[in-house]
């Protein structure tokens, strides 16, 4: 999905292709999703981050279809700005706010994959540690205590930061899923870690091979 201001849509396309799937570029102004079987909402600054990150993108024609699709089980992965869009669209609980230290952070980040039965993480081992890039200014995940306890209790924390918390996210949360596991939001960038030449690892590729596996299994 490309919104005006998306940055990582091309890298997401490339990651999907490297995983063995056929990527289709979607445009925010088109309601029609071209029969795609899963959607990646990429990182960037959709609509210039006006109002709040992801707040305007939520009302784009394509998002109407994606919200409907996601509620009917279509797999959706939101990365960085895409995670912010999913929270604004209430497909995921909580919100992402400015980093507690007020600086943009850009570094390779270690994560622990905590939930491996989602459409996007079934290719990982439970507890597997991975290294992928992180780059955000507003990546602090916040939610009220009740929501956080619910996420933990239902095993919906998909990934957690290891080492120093890079942005003040509550409980070191880097990614979460909805109750059904088809919608996942993640602040770090697996699509930038799919080839030795350009990434710190190839640890991100399994997000994209996972979705392919789960779609093939369904077919």
């Amino acid at each position: 999905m490309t919104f005006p201001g998306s940055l990582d849509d091309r890298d997401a396309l490339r990651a999907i292709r490297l995983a063995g799937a056929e990527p289709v570029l979607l445009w925010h102004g088109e309601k029609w999703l071209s029969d795609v079987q899963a959607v990646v909402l990429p990182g960037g600054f959709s609509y210039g981050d006006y109002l709040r990150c992801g707040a305007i993108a939520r009302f784009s024609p394509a998002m109407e279809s994606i919200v409907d699709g996601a509620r009917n089980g279509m797999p959706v992965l939101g990365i960085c700005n895409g995670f912010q869009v999913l929270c604004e669209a209430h497909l995921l609980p909580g919100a992402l706010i400015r980093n507690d230290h007020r600086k943009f952070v850009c570094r390779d980040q270690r994560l622990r994959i905590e939930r491996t039965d989602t459409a996007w993480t079934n290719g990982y081992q439970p507890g597997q540690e991975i290294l992928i890039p992180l780059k955000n200014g507003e990546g602090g995940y916040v939610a009220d205590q009740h929501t956080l306890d619910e996420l933990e209790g239902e095993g919906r924390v998909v990934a957690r930061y290891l080492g120093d918390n890079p942005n003040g996210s509550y409980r070191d949360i880097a990614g979460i899923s909805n109750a059904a596991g088809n919608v996942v939001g993640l602040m770090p960038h697996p699509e930038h870690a799919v080839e030795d030449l350009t990434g710190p690892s190839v640890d991100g590729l399994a997000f994209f091979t996972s979705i392919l596996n789960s779609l093939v299994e369904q077919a």
Partner: protein
Amino acid sequence: MARVVVDVVMKPEILDPQGQAILNALGRLGIAGVSSVRQGKHFELEVDETVDHEALEHIADTLLANPVIEDFTVRRG
């Protein structure tokens, strides 16, 4: 037409890093006695008589503010 003002501010329990940066700058400005700053957003809407209070609440609650992290007030100016 009437003017409506919507003010949005982060909930007290949510950290406001920008407010903190402003507070720190106040210290460097040489002003003491300010113990807290919360930064928010101020919206001015020109609306006609068809937009009732309920509609304004809806606008503030679904678009202007994110109620997960922000509180808002709506008042007719």
